């Protein structure tokens, strides 16, 4: 499944879980609860760590560019 989803033209990889890093959870049940809480608040921004204007700027710039093309 993973092999089919990788970007076309790029090297194929093995879909071997031993080669994939995962988070070292110390409490999987609590992690599951955090995930559920996060999903239930999906109407909120998933990322609130960066308050810089760069994202808004990039979005605005892209919007302007698209308007220019239309």
């Amino acid at each position, binding site marked *: *499944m*993973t092999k089919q*989803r*990788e*970007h076309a033209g*790029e090297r194929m*990889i*093995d879909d071997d*879980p*031993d*080669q*994939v*890093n*995962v*988070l*070292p*959870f*110390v*409490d*999987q*049940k*609590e*992690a*599951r609860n*955090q*995930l*559920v*809480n*996060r*999903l239930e608040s*999906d*109407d909120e*921004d*998933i*990322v609130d*760590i*960066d308050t810089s204007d760069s*994202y808004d700027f*990039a979005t605005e710039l892209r919007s302007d560019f698209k308007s220019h093309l239309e």
Partner: protein
Amino acid sequence: MSGADFDAAVDELEGCIERCGDTIADTLHTDQGQTIGFIAERNSWTYVVHGDPGGNKHQFTVEFRFGVSNNIANILEPADVRDLLSLDSSTSINDQHLEDAAIEVLDSMRPANQEKFRYHLLQEICDSNTSYNFIETPGGGIEQFHISGDVYPGRSGFTQAEFARTVRSVISVGIRGVQFVATAFDFESVVDSQLDTDSPDLRYIQ
């Protein structure tokens, strides 16, 4: 570079990994049994070193792979999986169900959050010394990200220091991405504090 030279380069890389103090967890082979690389471990992190005897025989890749969906699959409970996949309550949950449910979680994120997730992850893993690659879900979510750097053990001038520097860069950038994922899903309080091993520029998990 001949086949023997490729094998010699693989041997050299094995020595490089060991001299870094890292552990070789497994060896990668072709279907014909030729060794083409290694799965190595540094602290709790895994990286892969591999080449392609049928391609550019000089070039080997050091790669750090992180599975966003793997983390979600690891913490979902059977009832969650049945809900997400609309399975009957009597269905026995297997690994494929877990993978499908995790992808369903990622695909169910609203587009604006998917876009922000990608944007900020890119900010963390874009680095002049390494390359990145995404594996996407059918809905456009990020299922895995890979950080990689190339080394050329068959060429003159290749050194242990070059290998060590490449591995350090790849893992360091990879951990920055991991930290971002942990933060984005509010996992900071439930991951091992050793997450911040040997990277001086981590930003989120203290």
